[in-house]
């Protein structure tokens, strides 16, 4: 009885911590300025939020259900990292810029000369300069 109560308290602390990280990541997903920083916010919810919620649930479960929860957690950790990597790689390959830097990676072929130079002091647009007109 007492052990069950202690486990419930630990599980509640983990659950509320995971909920806190979920909300923080959601706010960051809305309020952060550029795409890559938003990826960081989504990563917070995928790692810390999911870990807190699922481990907190595992503390109040039977061993079989706890094993299922740990399986779900391992799967979420693997797939969120893989999909975020693929997403950032695709966005970088298509020219989404990082903050105020016009071009960070010079392995990408440069834009056509008639697209004009980008002043680094201007606030960034989320698409690269060479994508702003050609995607229509």
């Amino acid at each position, binding site marked *: 009885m007492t052990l069950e109560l202690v486990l*419930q308290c630990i*599980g*509640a602390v983990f*659950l*509320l911590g*995971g*909920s*806190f990280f*979920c*909300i923080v*990541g*959601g*706010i960051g*997903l*809305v309020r952060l300025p550029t*795409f890559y920083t*938003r*990826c960081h916010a*989504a990563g917070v*919810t*995928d790692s810390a*939020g*999911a870990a807190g*919620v*699922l481990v*907190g*649930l595992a503390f*109040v*479960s039977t061993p079989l*259900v706890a094993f*299922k*929860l740990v*399986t*779900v957690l391992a*799967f*979420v950790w693997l*797939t*969120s990292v*893989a*999909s*975020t990597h*693929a*997403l950032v790689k*695709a*966005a970088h*390959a*298509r020219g*989404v810029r990082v903050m105020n830097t016009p071009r960070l990676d010079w392995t990408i072929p440069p834009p056509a000369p008639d697209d004009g130079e980008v002043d680094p002091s201007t606030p960034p647009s*989320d*698409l690269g300069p060479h994508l702003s007109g050609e995607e229509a």
Partner: protein
Amino acid sequence: MSYVYAAAASAILITMLLAMGRAIVGPTTYDRILALNAFGTKTVLLIAVMGYLFGRPEWLDLALVYGLCNFVGTLAVLRFSKYGSLANDVTLPPDAEDHA
């Protein structure tokens, strides 16, 4: 303990609403895909917490299946947005529609 489950479910629902807002206003396609991916992960967590809230932890299997579908769907959308096709790596030339 059910209050804790309800609080966690509410927090996850608020996060899902925020992700949905980013998916609606997101300026680029990648923002929308990112918000969709976060939304799917939060759906997995919500199914798990709701299972405990309603006393049916066997909903975890649904959560696992939903996570699998979400991962495959995200990769499919990414591949489509990167290559313009799901079948091969070759981007079709712009005049391919004329020969089709």
